[in-house]
């Protein structure tokens, strides 16, 4: 990707049949060429599109499962091709590693070329008449004075200068190449930081009920995805207590805020820190960042048999909240009853009926916790508790409805089922879902991103250019000053710059103070 200022040196005549070494050299040149980088960039973009068209394992595993259910024949093939984990697949990795390889392969000669250029002096200009960008003027000053003025002007414009064959050669704009290399190097560093963070970090989710204390151990997580090199012993030793959870809504029923008041403690129960964690307001404990992800409701339910004996001690029932309606669903499994009894519970935070509901619905829900009502639908039969099943739903395959009407309970009240059992809604709490994540690569990535941006702008806007000046005696007491130049980029702007430089030099030769200094 190097931009050569000099025309390429003539290569010796190659033999008619290139040998292996020559073929390899040719391939290597091709690999590190801009064209290869270009093609790989487009291929990388095309490959990324695949990752957004198919559901991704790391992003939405449920949707991958759904895809398997919808396309039982196709899905396994796609999975083998890695299309459900595009960004972790070997072929995606191959593309970006090839790109990075090409990048390194071209950065090495570029670095060498830049060092060489910085060490050498600006080259000779030769015949100035052959340059397209030229400027010139006549001045009464002597040639030495004119050259001194040119030197001053070019130095002020921060040109690197050298005397070449009686000409003054100036060059500037090395920052473009240096910045471009900084940009590309930062990309490499960014990727290293990303890989390091992925490998040694982890991410997980945990639900905590109000008032409860949760210990940071693998078993406490509902979902846990560790990096390849993350050992469970690396989990920071602390506990979290959810002191309070609160949520609020705007007048139009859209969510305004939800937040957890958390206290972090060490394993002996000593308080480390306390903070209100809300979306966009995470907390950091021992290098672990804790984010507010979700929340839900926990009705407390107690079940007794017809004689008042307790079948289910007051139990906190974790429910799943529908974010659109704020209605939550959960299941209570009374395995001690015989036959077994299952309760499907639906929690309304504020049950409204008739006139209060939009669109003539019979009932609807106020998202605010103003009038909680627990609707209980009872079933009896076999709960199939021996089989793995969701905590939020009942396996209804061997259950039949118990009674023909659901029970409606408000906190503190109880009601009897058709078989004489009594269900009590003894209390209502909230739970908070927190995401806990540790990514040791973040500082590296952050610095790399900053450097990347720092390099990008000069690499696009600084232009590399050269100027040559010569002064020839013209007539008895005058000098003809000629400027010529060459710009690799921004040729229009350079024309104007050269004209401005010529004007400044001309003015410099006429300034009496400068003339005196020049003759001293």
């Amino acid at each position, binding site marked *: 990707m190097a931009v050569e200022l000099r025309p390429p040196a003539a290569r010796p005549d190659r033999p008619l049949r290139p040998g292996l070494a020559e073929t390899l050299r040719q391939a290597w040149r091709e690999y590190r060429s801009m064209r290869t980088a270009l093609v790989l*960039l487009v291929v990388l973009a095309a490959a990324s599109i695949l990752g957004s068209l198919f559901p991704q394992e790391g992003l939405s595993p449920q949707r991958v499962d759904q895809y398997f259910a919808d396309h039982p024949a196709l899905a396994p093939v796609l999975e083998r091709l890695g299309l459900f984990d595009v960004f972790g697949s070997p072929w995606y990795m191959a593309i970006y590693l090839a790109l990075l390889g090409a990048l390194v392969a071209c950065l090495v000669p570029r670095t060498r070329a830049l060092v060489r250029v910085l060490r050498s002096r600006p080259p000779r200009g030769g015949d100035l008449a052959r340059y397209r960008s030229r400027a010139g003027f006549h001045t009464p000053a002597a040639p030495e004075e004119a050259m001194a003025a040119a030197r001053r002007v070019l130095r002020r414009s921060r040109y690197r200068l050298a005397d070449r064959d009686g000409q003054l050669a100036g060059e500037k704009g090395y920052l473009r190449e240096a910045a471009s290399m900084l940009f590309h190097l930062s990309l490499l560093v960014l990727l290293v930081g990303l890989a390091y963070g992925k490998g040694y970090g982890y991410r997980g989710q945990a639900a905590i009920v109000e008032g409860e204390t949760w210990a940071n151990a693998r078993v406490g997580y509902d979902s846990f995805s560790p990096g390849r090199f993350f050992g469970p012993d690396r989990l920071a030793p602390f506990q979290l207590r959810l002191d309070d959870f609160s949520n609020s809504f705007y007048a139009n029923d859209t969510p305004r805020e939800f937040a957890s008041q958390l206290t972090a403690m060490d394993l002996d129960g000593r308080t480390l820190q306390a903070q209100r964690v809300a979306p966009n307001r995470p907390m950091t404990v021992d290098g672990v960042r804790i984010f507010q992800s979700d929340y839900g409701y926990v009705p407390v339910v107690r079940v007794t048999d017809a004689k008042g004996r307790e079948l289910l001690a007051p139990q906190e029932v974790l429910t799943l909240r529908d974010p659109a309606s704020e209605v939550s669903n959960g299941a209570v499994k009374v395995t001690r009853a015989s036959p077994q009894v299952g309760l499907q519970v639906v929690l309304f935070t504020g049950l409204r009926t008739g006139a209060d509901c939009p669109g003539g619905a019979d009932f609807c829900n106020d998202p605010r916790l103003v009038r909680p009502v627990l609707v209980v639908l009872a079933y009896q039969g076999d709960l199939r508790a021996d089989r793995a099943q969701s905590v939020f739903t009942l396996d209804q395959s061997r259950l039949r409805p118990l009674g023909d009407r659901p029970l409606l309970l408000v906190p503190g009240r109880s009601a009897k089922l058709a078989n004489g059992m009594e269900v009590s809604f003894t209390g209502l709490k909230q739970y908070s879902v927190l*995401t806990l994540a540790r990514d040791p690569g973040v500082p590296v990535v952050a610095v790399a991103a900053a450097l990347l941006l720092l390099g990008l702008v000069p690499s*696009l806007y600084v232009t590399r250019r050269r100027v040559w000046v010569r002064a020839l005696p013209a007539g008895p007491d005058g000098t003809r000053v000629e400027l010529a130049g060459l710009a690799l980029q921004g040729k229009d702007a350079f024309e104007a710059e050269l004209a401005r430089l010529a004007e400044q030099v001309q003015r410099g030769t006429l300034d009496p103070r400068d003339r005196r200094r020049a003759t001293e």
Partner: protein
Amino acid sequence: MTPAQLATTSDTLTWLAVLSYVVAATLFGLDFAYRARWLGAAGLAVTVAGLGANLGAAVTRGLAVHRVPWGNMYEFSIIVGIVTVTGFLVWVARRPEIRPLGVFVLLPAVLAMALGGLVFRVPAGPLVPALNSRWIVIHVAAAITGSSVLCLAAVFSILYLVKDRMERRQRPPAPPLVAGAARTADRVEVDQAVARHGLIWSRMPSAETLDQLAYRTTAFGFPIWTFAIIAGAIWAQAAWGRYWGWDPKETWSFISWTVFAAYLHARATAGWRGRRAAWLSILGLATLLFNFYAVNTVIVGLHSYGGM
């Protein structure tokens, strides 16, 4: 004014801006066809008036909702109009000869705003908690600016391709006709080309100028787009605990970034600069449009906030 009145004012101003842009586009179009100076000047005046209305729409919307006015696709569309038109005006100030191109810049802006107003309009309202961050000011502003500027660059690339095609057909340039002289075969060919495509296209700035406009506009938009992605990553780190998760919106912004990076490389590669590079820029435009319209509405992801 009450928030409701402010919101209504904002909606009215938005349509007023759209209307102004349509009128200005027509004037620029006529200027393009007939080269009457006053038409272009009038078009410019109407554009500036429309931009005023557009700015007013954004400000009143912001006042109505007590936050930055870029929280959903409708508001995003309003800002797109501001950035695109401002970008065009800046170019016209620097190169007056491109003024008639206004028709090609204003029409996409009008399309984006009208689509926003007709399809994605949502009543003025507060943001969901996940969007309540000061990063929305920085990240979304940069994303709108970057994508609008890159779209503008792609429009220049399209015009470049059209003009380049014309120029290649008309080469070699015909010698001036001497009275009474027989028409040369070349001249007949040029006349046929003009008859086919109309004189209008021959009045566009040269292909080289258009190519340069496209490049410089991309060189301006690309760092802003890069910054938008980085700012988004910082926000994602604060909001979701990971700076990059291949969410569809992230993936597509990366795709756009890659394609425009390819364009910048192509401009410095023999055999790619010129037409092939221009096609990359158009591909970039397609990815930006897909990211905004399709990803927000069709593909499920964390960025599904379009208010749909």
